[in-house]
């Protein structure tokens, strides 16, 4: 259960949004929409505790994320505009290592399963450096899919993905919701999630 309470966000003296309220119960996806520069990324970073709001707070199960610290990180998976994968490592290594660092030792099979799901099977041993833009995004998503996080925070999740990959993301999100997970997703393209419950949040700019 994620709650946004009277969030104000100001960047460089320019207010982006003022007392924004929302509550996202488990099994729900919150799609954040808005023009470029309307504050989607900022909002998502506030949710992750990577950035502090001007006023208000983001709560996870009733407590401020800022004060939750490590145990919140356990339930959180964040994917930003940047992919957060290592160019020197192969997709497989990336998935395994980023999970290990998050305290989730992963069996090779599971990692490979996720990569197959995302259509990177044929590239799983090729250093990310050689991958195309969309393939990198897919590798980044594989990290999220294999994780144990209950709350997914995905920024511009469909960026650089082709239609096939978009479909995969959709099913993955639906699975996550059905499993009682929560997701907050910023995107310019409609997600058309059928499973779980679905909310929109339009940031006016």
């Amino acid at each position: 259960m994620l709650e946004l309470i009277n969030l104000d966000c100001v960047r460089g003296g320019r207010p982006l949004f003022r007392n924004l309220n929302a509550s996202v119960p488990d099994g729900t996806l919150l799609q954040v929409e808005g023009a470029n520069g309307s504050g989607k990324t900022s909002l998502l970073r506030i949710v992750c505790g990577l950035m502090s709001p001007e006023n208000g707070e983001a709560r996870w199960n009733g407590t401020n994320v800022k004060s939750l610290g490590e145990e919140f990180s356990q339930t959180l998976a964040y994917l930003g505009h940047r992919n957060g994968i290592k160019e020197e490592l192969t997709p497989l290594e990336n998935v395994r290592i980023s999970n290990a660092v998050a305290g989730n030792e992963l069996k090779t099979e599971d990692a490979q399963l996720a990569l197959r799901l995302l259509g990177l099977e044929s590239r799983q041993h090729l250093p990310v450096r050689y991958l195309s833009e969309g393939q990198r995004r897919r590798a980044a998503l594989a990290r999220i899919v294999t994780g144990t996080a209950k709350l997914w925070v995905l920024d511009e999740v469909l960026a650089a993905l082709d239609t096939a990959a978009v479909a995969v993301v959709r099913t993955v999100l639906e699975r996550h919701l059905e499993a009682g997970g929560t997701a907050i997703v910023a995107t310019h393209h409609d997600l058309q999630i059928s499973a779980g419950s679905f909310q929109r949040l339009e940031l006016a700019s």
Partner: protein
Amino acid sequence: MFRSVVARDLMLAWRRRSDVFATLFFFVIVVSLFPLGIGPETQLLRSIAPGVVWVAALLASMLSLGRMFANDEQDGTLEQLLLTPQPLYLVVLGKTLAQWLVSEVPLILVAPLLGMQFNLPSETLIVLVVTLLIGTPVLSLVGSIGAGLTLGLRGANVLIALLILPLYIPVLIFGAGAVDASISGGEIAANIYLLAALLVVSLVFAPWATAAALRISMEYFLTSDI
């Protein structure tokens, strides 16, 4: 998870072996540059050898420190590390340890050879190695603070130099001092004890400082690079 952070960085370093060797040879070359600038008089060279080797070690570790967090920041993996369910202190400590193993230990291993180039007596070489063993971890620990602070600022490398070289000075003085002493027959032990003291202090405080520095710079990023 501490272990997996170390493992991660060691693996990355292994993928970039050439970095490691490069740092090493940088150290060797810098040391070898001085005679070319100063002239071949054996006597003169021997008397400046401790200073030269130590300064070169400083510069080499500084260079490799520049990459310590910058790489992770650029590809967005640093955010992940910040969001891992473990104290940032440990993450930092892990990365620092890896950095020391990868970039400093090799220097310690070749240092005696360089010492020979300056005709240092063998007992002096031993002192040199000991001081490096105690001193270089301090360099890594202190350096990581600078690396954290300058993260994402342009020209981080040079800025780091600027920020942390002054903090290195005590290490330099005691380190080179000890080696000097063993040539000129001065007080070696005292210098080494002081180095050890520095090590203890930095081991306790540096990672905290670095963690704080990281948090600060990340906040800065949020406003600076989305």
